[in-house]
């Protein structure tokens, strides 16, 4: 059957296989067109209207390129077994295509109102296992069984179990998972470029071609690791820097964080029992438009709704340095406690970067599960980006931005107090 193409603003033509097209055309996948990738960031960077739909296609495209680069650079991998390589590639494509199906409206922006104990990954599983997506994955599996044999079946359960690391049947599955969940995975590769373009900023850009061409595999006696050749270290540096700058400038932007908090406050008091439904059929009816309609309808009765509609932002009266040390954390706590007494706790809103740790580049040792080994020319033992790059060493120190916002009535009082406090501390 002929392959079709999607024209993607980031990657150009993205090739789609026939049964994948059925998945893309399904209702659960089409819902992703209505889930913005960056929540309410478009109220700050107006171009950020892109959705999980394009991102999911982009990750599938990149994971294919990344896997093929590794196969090409490490010729001994999988002993050139055609069936196994085709099978692994298809598994990765399906994981990438479906990995965000369970996102809530406004993506991470409203995750705090999931039913108790559930996360978007749980809804992704439910959607893969319990909707028509399951049928289409089975069809792909049937094609593989027909062409390569029974052991090459692909099922919805297999896709979920590999992505969540629940499958102990094949050590290669751990290796495959690293393409989607590691210090250098295709999810991050796509969203950095995509978010950067749509936000109209340059911070998230890096040399994708060099990075992909440097991907390889490192094998010891027990495992196969997704790795990078020494020649790709500067592209890897750029990638980590891109993540750092995007975190500081976009993902943790003070206005976006404030608006996200308003959205959560609104949903917690306006959704039935303050949560999204647990039932997958009902959950699939929720998208950004439905939430925004609710917000609009409550503008006169809900303070968070009024702030969202009118884009009325509480002023940030204090912000700690990006890499706050213990003294600076103590200073923040002191100011916070004094402002609570001075302005009233109800007139303040606190926010900290620790709520978004998954977006921050972190320092990983070589034996960390998330680390990507760098193959060195002069040593049999691989290294890590934090050890090899002086720049990255600094970038992966804990990011600790702490913010205090004040209600409009209290801004003058709070600002003047903070200024006086800072003056005293600097004397």
């Amino acid at each position, binding site marked *: 059957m002929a392959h079709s193409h999607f024209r993607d603003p980031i990657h150009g033509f993205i090739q789609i296989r026939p049964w994948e097209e059925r998945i893309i055309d399904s209702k659960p996948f089409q819902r992703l067109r209505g889930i913005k990738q960056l929540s309410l960031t478009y109220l700050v960077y107006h171009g950020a209207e892109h959705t999980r739909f394009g991102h999911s296609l982009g990750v599938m495209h990149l994971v294919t390129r990344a896997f093929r680069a590794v196969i090409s650079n490490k010729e001994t991998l999988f002993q050139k077994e055609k069936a196994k390589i085709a099978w692994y590639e298809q598994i990765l494509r399906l994981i990438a295509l479906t990995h965000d199906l369970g996102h809530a409206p406004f993506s991470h922006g409203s995750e705090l109102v999931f039913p108790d104990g559930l996360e978007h990954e749980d809804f992704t599983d439910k959607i893969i296992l319990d909707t028509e997506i399951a049928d289409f994955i089975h069809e792909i599996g049937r094609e593989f069984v027909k062409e390569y044999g029974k052991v090459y079946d692909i099922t919805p359960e297999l896709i979920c179990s590999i992505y969540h690391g629940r499958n102990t*049947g094949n050590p290669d599955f751990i290796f495959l998972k690293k393409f989607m969940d590691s210090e250098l995975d295709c999810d991050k590769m796509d969203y950095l470029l995509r978010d950067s373009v749509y936000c109209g900023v340059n911070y998230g850009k890096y040399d994708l071609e060099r990075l992909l061409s440097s991907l390889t595999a490192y094998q010891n006696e027990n495992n196969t690791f997704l790795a990078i050749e020494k020649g790709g270290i500067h592209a890897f540096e750029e990638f980590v820097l891109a993540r750092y700058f995007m975190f500081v400038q976009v993902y943790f932007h003070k206005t976006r964080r404030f608006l996200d908090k308003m959205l959560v406050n609104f949903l917690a008091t306006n959704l039935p029992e303050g949560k999204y439904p647990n039932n997958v059929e009902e959950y699939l009816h929720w998208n950004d438009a439905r939430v925004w309609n609710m917000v609009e309808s409550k503008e006169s009765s809900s303070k968070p709704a009024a702030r969202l509609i009118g884009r009325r932002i509480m002023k940030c009266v204090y912000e700690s340095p990006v890499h706050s040390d213990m003294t600076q954390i103590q200073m923040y706590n002191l100011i916070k406690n004094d402002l609570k007494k001075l302005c009233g706790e109800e007139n303040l809103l606190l926010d900290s970067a*620790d709520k978004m740790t998954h977006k921050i580049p972190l320092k990983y040792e070589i034996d960390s*599960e998330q680390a990507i080994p760098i193959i060195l020319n002069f040593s049999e033992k691989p290294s890590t980006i934090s050890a090899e790059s002086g720049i990255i060493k600094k970038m992966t120190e804990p990011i600790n931005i702490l913010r205090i916002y004040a209600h409009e009535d209290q801004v003058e009082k709070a600002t003047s107090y903070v200024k006086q406090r800072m003056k005293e501390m600097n004397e």
Partner: protein
Amino acid sequence: MGSVVNLLPIIEKISQYKHPGKKKLQKIVYLIQRQGIDLGFKYGIHYYGPYSSELDYATHSLAMQGAIEIIPDGMTQRIHMTQFAETLMAESQDQLLNDQQIEAINRIIEKFANLSAFELEVLTTTDFVTADLYRSGEKYDDSAVLAGVKNIKGDKFSVEQIRSAIAELKDMPDPKV
């Protein structure tokens, strides 16, 4: 994911033992959850046994809040609580585990925290494979567990080490399906 503050007493207790690093914390929290105390961290099988990226992020989150310190120590890291941890726990009273749960956690830590990171890796990997076999719904025995661990870990663990782990895990509750 549950409240990250509940990691603090666990970290405090583990830091009284040898090599209290992130790897040991990963395995101990895994064993605590397998004994039925749900701290809300999801685990998958990785290169060094069961691992939770959520727990990794939670640990970094506590470090960012100044409640713990993660100190590089050769090839690995040490981890311990700071004075600010007490303040954070006092601020989060309503989210803390009850005394009975803390006692149960302490018993588990006392039982396992003396083990090295490698020994914990053998134990938890064996348990993870057992749980995977259990969830498959098919009948299995010790030899199937042994074969499963060998399949995923190659020769990293000896047959004796796996058998000893199987024996150690005899009283482990059935996993959630």
